[in-house]
Structures are given as structure tokens and as C-alpha cells.
């Protein structure tokens, strides 16, 4: 088995560029110089390692992890599940996946969110889990509602779940958002549309997965996450600090 090497270069044409005028906040926050390309050293090939003792089993169940005893949050009960893979389609095991979202009414439990929709007393809106040995993860939650935001005067975010993933090296660190198949707001969203390639937007759209649904109980959506792949060091035997 060849030793894993450096990460594949990130495809910056697949990701959104820094400056995206229709997403107004990016205008004053986008660096204007090009980033300087660094070949991976130990600082980029390594990253934090987490274990099961960092989290609790209930952390991935947003229906229960903040609810009062005997209570449940309001909303459409859903499972979100999938694999974390790398660009070589290899599973990424034992990596931390964190999520956060608005409640079914589109309101966040955050002291800065002032949207008129009510806070759900039984919904925190965050969860976390570790992928298993096959890179598999799942969450149970309620489907987040759409919410308005100040961009244009009538901008609405499609229902979405924010997702944070680590991978094995700091260079794989990624935050993204999951959207739901069939939501008409996806096509209208300036944040979604920071992504130039429609196929990349498709990649952020979770698929209804009736086979994984629990009849009479919970609908499932499937969402695989792909992190940067790593070269195999077939012809490299220099020790380069990794």
C-alpha cells in the first residue's frame, strides 16, 4: 500500500470565488489579492484528531438533544445520512461532522437572530457525530424552514443545514450547506449562486431517500460529502516532514 501523500490541489473553479457581488456581504470581506499557493508541509497534512469521548451518543439526534423530557420539536422529522469520502472515493473514517440549522419555522436559536418566527423550546439546532469505520454518518432532526435575510429586500434562504467536516489534515477542512431536493428557493438564492457550476450545486442538494426512511415515522435524505483526495506517494521517498 503506497504511503498517502499530499492533498490534490483544490479546484477553485468548483468552489465559489471570494468575491460574489450578488451575495453582498462578500464584497467587503473578499481578499483582493490572490492566495499564495503552498505545497503541503506537515502543517497542512496534519489536523486535529477527535474521538468518541469528545462527544456523546445523543449529540447526533437533534430531535432529542435539546428537548425537554417527554417533549419533541415541531416539524417534519427527517434523517440525514451519507458517507464522507475523499476524491478517490475512499471513505474518511472517524472524522468529526458538525451541523447547525434553523428550526422548522426558519428561526435560529442565536442571540443575533431576530426573525419573527418563534424559537422552538425543544429545539437547539445543532448536532455532531463521528463517521464510522466506513465513513458513514447520520443525524436525526426536523426539516429546517426557509428564512428571510437582508441581501436584496426580498431574499429568502432555501431550507438548509450547515455542515462542518474535518478530514485528516487541516487542508481538508470544509464548511458547506446542505439543500433539499425540490426546493424552489435553491435556484433563487444568492448564496447558493455563489457557486458557478450547476453540477456543484447539485452536489449540495440532498436526495430524498425513501429506502432509508422509517415508514410512518421519519423521512430520509441522503447526502454524501467529498473531501480532498490524497496522492499516493508511488515515486516519492523523500521525507518531507509528513
Amino acid at each position: 500500500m503506497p504511503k498517502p501523500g499530499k492533498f490534490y490541489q483544490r479546484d477553485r473553479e468548483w468552489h465559489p470565488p471570494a468575491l460574489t457581488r450578488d451575495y453582498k456581504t462578500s464584497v467587503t470581506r473578499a481578499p483582493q489579492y490572490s492566495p499564495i499557493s503552498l505545497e503541503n508541509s506537515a502543517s497542512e497534512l496534519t489536523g486535529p484528531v477527535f474521538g468518541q469521548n469528545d462527544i456523546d451518543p445523543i449529540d447526533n439526534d437533534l430531535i432529542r438533544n435539546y428537548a425537554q423530557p417527554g417533549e419533541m420539536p415541531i416539524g417534519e422529522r427527517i434523517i440525514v445520512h451519507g458517507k464522507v469520502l475523499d476524491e478517490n472515493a475512499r471513505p474518511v473514517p472517524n472524522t468529526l461532522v458538525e451541523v447547525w440549522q434553523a428550526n422548522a419555522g426558519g428561526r435560529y436559536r442565536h442571540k443575533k437572530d431576530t426573525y419573527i418566527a418563534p424559537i422552538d423550546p425543544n429545539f437547539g439546532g445543532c448536532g455532531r457525530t463521528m463517521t464510522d469505520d466506513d465513513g458513514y454518518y447520520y443525524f436525526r432532526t426536523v426539516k429546517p424552514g426557509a428564512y428571510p435575510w437582508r441581501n436584496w429586500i426580498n431574499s429568502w434562504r432555501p431550507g438548509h443545514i450547515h455542515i462542518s467536516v474535518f478530514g485528516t489534515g487541516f487542508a481538508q477542512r470544509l464548511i458547506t450547506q446542505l439543500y433539499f431536493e425540490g426546493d424552489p428557493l435553491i435556484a433563487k438564492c444568492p448564496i447558493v449562486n455563489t457557486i458557478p457550476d450547476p453540477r456543484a450545486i447539485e452536489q449540495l442538494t440532498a436526495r430524498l431517500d425513501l429506502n432509508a426512511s422509517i415508514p410512518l415515522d421519519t423521512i430520509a435524505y441522503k447526502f454524501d460529502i467529498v473531501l480532498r483526495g490524497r496522492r499516493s506517494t508511488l515515486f516519492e521517498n523523500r521525507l518531507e516532514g509528513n
Partner: protein
Amino acid sequence: MPQELDYLKETPSQTAGPYVHIGLAPGAAGFDIYRQELGHDIAGPNAAGDRIRVEGIVIDGTGSPVKDVLLEVWQANAAGIYAHPEHPGEVEDGFRGWGRVITDFETGEWAFETIKPGPVMGRDGRMMAPHINLWIVARGINLGLNTRLYFEDEADANARDPVMNLIEWERRRKTLIATRSDSGGQQVYRFDIRLQGEDETVFFDI
């Protein structure tokens, strides 16, 4: 029929948004949910080396503080070893070298405490000066920004650092150097990050 390359594409990034704290630092969002939040203790109690405080602010293109930013810290220990199975060497029990830092919502000021990292072996056997890797996410940032913090009092090592020397424009290198200003017997380093404008911080595509 042509051969096909069957690599997958990396999942595209989206902004962390203004409510990133709910997911990554719920206490800051205003509620308590987990047994323990991750990333509060970077070095742990057993780490050798100088205890330091790092503070700063992230400034946008209008010169205003960015008050909803979240930073992640990744650093080696004082011996230059990362807490990772692929990095040869041992770290102290409880040393993770990773942390999460959020700003004061009113002022945009942030700070964290850690130990000063040692020099780390870089590519081709060239030693890298002590540095802390930073990853910056916020509303309006479409793909997390990577930068490095170097230390003012490591001038010789900084001058030889292979990454610092990749920066063609010498005057931009100083944007990566934290200035030392001790107070109350504590080593304090100041590192302001400018997203745009004159003295825009150097960001890396890692």
C-alpha cells in the same frame, strides 16, 4: 471508447453564515447543549513551553471590525510536533494543538491562550519558523481563509522560513508577523487580520 477518470469532486464550500456559533460554539450563540464544547483548550495543562496569549481583530474592506468571525487554530507543540498520527514524535498528554476562537460580538476583538509552538520541519528538510495556522470563516467568506501567524521575536527564523520566502513582495510578509507586547508578566502577541486594502493579510491556498 476513451478511458474515464473516476475521481469525485470535492464538495463545494458555502459560507459559514452569521450563526456559525450555533454549530461550533453554542455557548456563544446563547445556549448550553453539549457536555463539552470542543476547542476551548488548545495546549492542555501538561504542555511544555512558554504560555502565551494571542489577540487581534479581523478588519473588513471598510476598515470595520468583523464581529461574527470564527477562527480555528492549528499548531505544533514547543518541540515542533503536531498531535497527529502521521507526524513522528510525541506530544504531551492532553495537547491537541487545535482550538476555536470567537470574537466579542460588540468589538470584534478575539483572543486565545496557548503555548508558543516550536519550529517545525518543513518540506525538503527545510525548517519552518514557529507559526500558528489559522482558518477563518464568517458570513461573506465563501471559502474559509488560511493564513499563518509568525512571531516578531523570531526574526532570524522568520527570515529563513521557506513559506515566508515564497511571498514575492517583501512588504507583504510583515502582515503575517504578530507583534509582541507583554503585559502583567504575560507574553502577549497581537495579530490583526486585514481582509482587504493596504496591508491585506497574506492568505494561502493550501
